[in-house]
């Protein structure tokens, strides 16, 4: 087999991370964000961080850990660290079956109850909203459900994420093709306008959503979120360990109004995490209803 590449080309390009350094870095990340990184991802860390270490002029992970803990610029570094350890995969109308279940079995019930009580108010919290596709999807769903009744309602979707960059992107509300991979053209045409950079979400959708940078590990700031009828937290707790999952789900419980609902991602459950919710099984998705 001939090769266009040198036969002695090496695979290692990055600074080595020792087992001790890995554990220190991982514990630091966990302490700050609740994100738990398995030791199997040690080499991933090496390659993900190596360029950044170079930019900072650091030659070892030990130096980086010192930088994170003691440098005068440590506060600026934290958001960058978060960018390196999070993934922001998302799209509009992600998990159509779940959204269907949500509309038929959760949303309609809550809307009806509110109507009966004469309180045309609805609060939804989208926790870990990434670049905004999820909360905007919910806003679109509300438009589709309420139609001309919508202006009578006081609706607030609070969308938060750890990443400042993601929040800024979400506030801009301009999206490329990939974001629409599971969205019908009808919905796209109805709620977005084509711009040179991509598709921009229309003002009537945008104004229902309020974005804010927030760390789910920070219980104090979670307490400030307006009490919700529904919490969406999809594909986020999968990155947490059990203790952090319990802590975050506890905060959701406290935030939810009586009878409120929690919706998790397709690969997430409250099994072993919390008994304070009643799981309602529907084909394709589970809705968790707050008990007590």
């Amino acid at each position, binding site marked *: 087999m001939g090769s266009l590449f040198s036969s002695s080309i090496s695979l290692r390009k990055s600074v080595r991370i020792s087992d001790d350094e890995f554990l220190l870095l991982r514990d630091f990340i966990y302490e700050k964000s609740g994100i738990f990184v398995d030791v199997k991802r040690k080499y991933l860390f090496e390659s993900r961080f190596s360029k950044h270490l170079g930019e900072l002029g650091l030659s070892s992970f030990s130096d980086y850990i010192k930088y994170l803990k003691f440098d005068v610029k440590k506060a600026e570094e934290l958001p960058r660290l978060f960018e390196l350890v999070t993934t922001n995969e998302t799209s509009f109308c992600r998990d*159509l079956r779940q959204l269907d279940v949500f509309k038929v079995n959760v949303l309609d019930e809550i809307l009806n109850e509110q109507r009966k009580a004469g309180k045309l108010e609805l609060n939804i919290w989208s926790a870990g909203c990434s670049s905004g596709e999820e909360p905007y999807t919910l806003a679109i769903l509300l438009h589709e459900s309420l139609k001309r009744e919508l202006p009578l309602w006081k609706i607030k979707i609070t969308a938060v994420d750890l990443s400042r960059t993601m929040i800024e992107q979400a506030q801009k509300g301009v999206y490329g093709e990939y974001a629409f991979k599971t969205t019908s053209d009808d919905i796209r045409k109805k709620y977005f306008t084509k711009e040179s950079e991509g598709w921009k979400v229309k003002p009537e959708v945008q104004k229902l959503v309020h974005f804010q940078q927030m760390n789910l590990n920070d219980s104090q700031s979670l307490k400030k979120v307006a009490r919700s009828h529904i919490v969406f937290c999809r594909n986020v707790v999968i990155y947490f360990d059990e203790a952090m999952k319990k802590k975050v789900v506890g905060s959701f419980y406290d935030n939810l109004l009586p009878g409120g609902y929690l919706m998790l991602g397709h690969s997430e459950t409250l099994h072993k995490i919390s008994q304070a919710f009643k799981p309602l099984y529907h084909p394709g998705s589970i809705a968790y209803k707050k008990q007590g």
Partner: protein
Amino acid sequence: MGIKCFEELTAGMILASDLKASDGRLLFKAGTEIEARHIELLKRVGVAEVDVEAGACELSDGMLLEIEDYVRDFFLYVNPDSEPVVEMFRISLALTGDAVARGWCLPDIIQRRASNVEHMEDLFLKGMGSPETIVMHEAELASFPDIYFRIKEVLEDDSASATRIAKVVSTDMSLAAKLIKLVNSPLYGFPQTIDSISRAVALIGAKELSTLALGISAINYFKDIPPELVDMKKFWRHSITCGLLAKILATTQTGLSPERFFIAGLLHDVGRLIMFKKLPYASTEAMLFARENSIPLVEAERSTMDFCHTDISRPLLEAWKFPEGLSNMINFHHNPMEFPNPLEPAIIHLADNLTNAMEIAQGGMYVLPGVDEQAWEILGIQADPVLRDAVEQCQEQIDTILGAFF
């Protein structure tokens, strides 16, 4: 072969094989250097594809760097100092460079991001189905092909005569045809043509042929998986390549009968097929999770479903009463050291990694899972040149063997 579509054809390229018109008429002989006037002519004749030779000089330094970056991405998860891994990296570079020189375009970011399938309803929600219940559900619903059990019967009966075996196998025409093709393929490398099952039994032995028949009849069971969910052709290509490499790598060890490794490789990811059938949406979520986090599929399965495809193959192969030795190779191909006698699963483990490395040059999607250090030591192989030789042998043989299946 480097197939270029007509639009990519430029003067100076050399034909790698005779170029024929759609009616079979010879247009140009292999070795012809394409000139502008040839291109004109081909355009008039309406030739869609042309097989041209690779020219190393075609690639710019910038392109080489791009290829290097592309290939590196598949090695993010693995130990960059591991001997077999480094060698696999070099092999991937060589293969990818070659593919690009022959006209293959590196997939762009969009192609590499997962497209996901919506509207797939899982039969089990997260936390509701253990691997055992999922397999039980499968085993209750669909009955396994009758022929499989009849083959198993003769396989287990030491006194079964060669004629009886030949008779059982021959009752399934398409199975028999596949077997004939396979025994005539480089997998066995007999000099003469074998034209009947009884001749095949005589040459390769009753046990061997029945095992092969067993593996192939098991594959048949999965022919109705929806194509929008997984590219089944790619799936089987992965499996067959792994089987072939496993067989080749097994020859580096003394006292193993290499042919069994082909079957184990062929079925090594069979658990994944049950996942596609029973948990289609969860499977696509796992694929998405793997790509987004640069982790191997098997890790992503564990994160998203709490179990992986070998947890599924274990009860499945048990329910099928699949031969134990083969089952162990399959069930432990991601963690060979957890099996008391790790040598055999270690070979499938290595072959699977090498298959993944080869697939990078074919638009593979997932990072390498990595070679277990202890397993590698047990094998006692010199990465250079053994892995490269294995890949070369595999490349020579793979098309014929794939031809027996598709």
